[in-house]
């Protein structure tokens, strides 16, 4: 508890430094999620039309998924240098697989009866996509967003090692100098942020789509 008090005191004494790290952390995580959504969702809609494209996209994204997040971040440095952008690109790559695959499976596994009924009612392909497939796939898409958010927040803690800043910086400094209270300056907000996000998204999911079917 003593360490925690020390950590809180440090934050109170250095609000500028703390807020800057928190800002960077949020900025890179949110940017990555937004970019990944704006790539992943349209891509999912494109690939459900062709079995070949779908296999190709799903497999390459799955291969990407096996790479450890640390390696994805690290490899950005020689390509893009240091700073916030390389981290954002790396985090986008981390967020893309769950978003794309969930959206794709959601769109693909829409009840065929519903699609058939819509066709029978004279809806065009486009209308079926907009009025049937996307609304019915929305819960799966949201689940993808939830998984991606947790992964991106975890990945963002590793950003300081490639000069990307964020709350992980305090942990890096804490480990380097064996400064235990500084470790907590990073770790406590990071944990609260991750748990809070997961909880909020879980509640939102419940409000929007009702109780989740037992996984």
């Amino acid at each position: 508890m003593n360490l925690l008090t020390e950590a809180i005191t440090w934050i109170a004494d250095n609000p500028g430094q703390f807020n800057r790290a928190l800002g960077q952390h949020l900025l890179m995580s949110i940017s990555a999620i937004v970019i990944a959504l704006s790539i992943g969702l349209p891509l999912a809609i494109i690939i459900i039309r062709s079995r070949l494209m779908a296999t190709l996209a799903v497999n390459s994204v799955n291969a990407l998924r096996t790479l450890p997040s640390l390696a994805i971040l690290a490899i950005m440095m020689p390509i893009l240098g240091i700073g916030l952008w390389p981290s954002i690109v790396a985090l986008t790559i981390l967020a893309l697989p769950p978003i794309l695959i969930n959206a794709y499976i959601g769109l693909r596994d829409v009840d065929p009866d519903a699609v058939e009924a819509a066709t029978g009612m004279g809806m065009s392909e486009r209308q079926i996509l907009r009025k049937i497939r996307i609304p019915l796939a929305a819960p799966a898409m949201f689940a993808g967003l939830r998984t991606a958010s947790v992964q991106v927040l975890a990945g963002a803690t590793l950003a300081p090692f490639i000069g990307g800043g964020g709350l992980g910086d305090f942990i890096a400094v804490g480990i380097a100098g064996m400064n235990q209270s500084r470790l907590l300056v990073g770790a406590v907000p990071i944990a609260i942020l991750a748990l809070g996000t997961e909880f909020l998204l879980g509640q939102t999911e419940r409000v929007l789509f009702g109780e989740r079917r037992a996984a």
Partner: protein
Amino acid sequence: MTWAHKNIGVILEAAGQHLLLSFLSVIIGCAIALVLGIISARRQKLYVLFLTLAGIIFVIPSLALFAFLIPVMGLGMKPALTGLSSYCLLILLRNVVTGLRNVPADVLDAADGMGFSRWQRLTKIELPLALPLIVSGIRIALVTVIGIATVAAFIDAGGLGSIILAGIDQSYPEKVIVGGVLTALIAVFFDLSMTWMEKRLSREKQA
């Protein structure tokens, strides 16, 4: 690939450490999950409590979890093993309990009717029937831990993450690629080989 060629020894040693770290974590996690799962499989409230705790640990980013453990355990293998085995708990507990719950009630009745003790019923009927799901939990846990274990290099636990870190520090992309791709290959190898095992187990179960 000149560095990799000259340093096969270093790479193999790191890969060995990585495997040791991952396997030990999953074994420890599995032992804990089995105990918790057996206790809570038929006690819904307790199960929800365990699941919530394991879920909280699972959501905390690995580097932050390690940071919490350093003041208590210092650096090295101890906090790394503790952190990584805690990560497995959610996946393993869920699969152990689902596996135990899937055992049909009439099978349990039959076992009771044959005069099996609680322990005999557990070890001879319930656990063997739950085995395919437990193995599938072990596979997912192992693949997850192999990836996260790279982060353990930050707290001096070694493994392939230390090669990636060296690559970052020295601006040496080859090291990053070797460490990253090797980690991915190891994960894929265990994913495929354990999927094969699962298939064999469920086939035997049906036969």
